[in-house]
């Protein structure tokens, strides 16, 4: 049996994926925090990707497959910390993959890297420019990670590298920005805007990652779920109440509250509440025959309070 190493294994998505991959792989993982009560068959190491101890783990575990999803996706630890963990962590990981005989690699990027802009076409394909940092500098680390991984893909063709850019991930276990946002007691929105948003269930995303490994995918792929609805519909269906705010008030307010550490949404996120990012998942479906099992209704249900 091949051995897979999952970075960020103690996160919601990491735990789901570990359980899913146990069917076909020997599973080990690393995370900066411990996973209490992890399955006995799974070896979990609490290390920082940037530290030498991580290389030791790879050297001793000798995985042939790596799934990289060990990113900080919130802003509680500070923007510069986040950037360093995500970008330098990825760089280290890629180097170790080259040096320690890893044969396939999946990097979990995000459709946010395309950026939310008024001129965005619907259903952007994988060749669309990654412009997120133009309006949302706080997540430029995600763009850099994606770019590092895509460059790696071309530089080391003998390692099967697959970059996945899933739509908004929701579910009971996963801690996504959008999930946290939709769970707010009053969900702030921008008055007069209601962009379309695509969603995918956490279990379906795990399945998609498993399929990518099974098919030995190489390349960059968007991953989409069952469909899309306007933001306000998503808020209503997850049992929330929208709090529409006029943009001229919202921007300075978010700016200050974020700087004082009172909220965890940077002002750059506001554009994501105004303009759509919808991506075409056809390429991935053609390569893997992926079919999401969870409907939009069920996805929203998993967030109901």
């Amino acid at each position, binding site marked *: 049996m091949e051995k897979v190493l999952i970075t960020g294994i103690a996160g919601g998505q990491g735990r789901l994926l570990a359980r899913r991959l146990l069917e076909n792989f020997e599973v080990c993982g690393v995370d900066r925090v411990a996973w209490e009560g992890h399955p006995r068959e799974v070896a979990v190491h609490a290390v920082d990707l940037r530290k030498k101890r991580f290389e030791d783990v790879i050297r001793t575990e000798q995985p042939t497959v790596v799934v990289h999803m060990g990113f900080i996706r919130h802003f509680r630890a500070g923007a510069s910390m986040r950037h360093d963990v995500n970008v330098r962590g990825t760089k280290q990981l890629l180097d170790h993959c080259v040096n320690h005989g890893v044969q396939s690699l999946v990097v979990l990027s995000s459709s946010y890297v395309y950026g939310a802009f*008024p*001129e965005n076409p*619907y259903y952007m394909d994988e060749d669309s420019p990654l412009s997120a940092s133009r309006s949302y500098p706080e997540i430029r680390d995600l763009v850099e990670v994606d770019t590092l991984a895509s460059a790696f893909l071309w530089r080391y063709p003998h390692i099967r590298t697959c970059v996945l850019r899933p739509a908004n991930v929701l579910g009971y276990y996963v801690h996504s920005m959008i999930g946290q946002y939709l769970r707010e007691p009053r969900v702030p929105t*921008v008055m*007069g*805007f209601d962009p*379309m948003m695509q969603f995918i269930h956490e279990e379906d995303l795990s399945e998609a990652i498993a399929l990518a490994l099974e098919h030995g995918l190489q390349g960059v792929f968007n991953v989409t779920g069952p469909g899309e*609805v306007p933001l306000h519909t998503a808020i209503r269906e997850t049992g929330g109440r929208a709090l529409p705010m006029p943009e001229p008030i919202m921007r300075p307010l978010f700016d200050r509250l974020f700087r004082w550490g009172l909220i965890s949404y940077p002002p750059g996120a506001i554009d994501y509440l105004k*303009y759509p990012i919808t991506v075409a998942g056809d390429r991935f479906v053609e390569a893997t025959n992926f079919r999401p099992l969870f*409907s939009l209704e069920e996805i929203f249900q998993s967030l109901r309070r």
Partner: protein
Amino acid sequence: MKEVLADLAGALTPLSVRGLQQECEERLRKVPNAINEFGFDGYGMSPEWLRRVALPGILLYRWYFRVETFDIERLPHGRMLLIANHAGQLPFDGVMLAASLLLEAEPPRIARAMGEYWIPRLPWVSVALARAGTLVGTPENCVHMLENGECVMVFPEGVRGINKPFPQRYQLQHFGTGFMRLALQTRAPIVPVAIIGSEEQQPGLVNLKGVGRLLGMPAFPITLGFPWLGPLGILPLPVKYRIYFGAPLHFEGEASDEDAVIEEKVEQVKRAVADLIERGLRERERVFT
């Protein structure tokens, strides 16, 4: 409270208006678009939303402009590009063409307008237009919709047509060539359309482009009514609309062909629209009836 108001509004609505509302609802139920369980298509269009706001447009269509259509049964099924003349300072021609497709075509169709790039920045307006089926006019959006079997309407004259002064009525301005490349790329038939009436609805005297640029608007037309009559001045005259649909044109070739090759095909479409306009003007006796 809301229900009482709705009842009151219902009781006060004349029967004929309620009839129009019902007709519109029935037609909207028959559109071939794929609508998800929450009532939206993949681009944010919502028949339910259209049902609620379509009435003013339909009143304009039936009672104000008294639109008459000719040869609408020529429309093909599935994907198509509607290419029409553009006039009248405000795009009532687009609204009436869309209304004719919903009310008169079999099956009823949602006409997709390709909007300006700044529309998504406008609060409320952007949402309203998206729910009505308008997308930003990027080539990617147009291709995606045509490949999805949608009916896309394009006014290749753009601002040059809609804001031209009255003496140039029914004279087609320069046609952009983008639509032809998209039609070739998606193998979509082109349906030439002539809209008669719109060119007299708001006679333009002169277009002050410099003032428009200063105000950040695409044009600043001085017309018979605007700006002299204030907001009232933007109302169109009650001209009678006649919409002529031509036979679908199929073009062969590559989307990447040279401009000269593309322009020659565009010229054919332009001639087809001009012929329809000529026929419309010949057949009409009066502008207002």
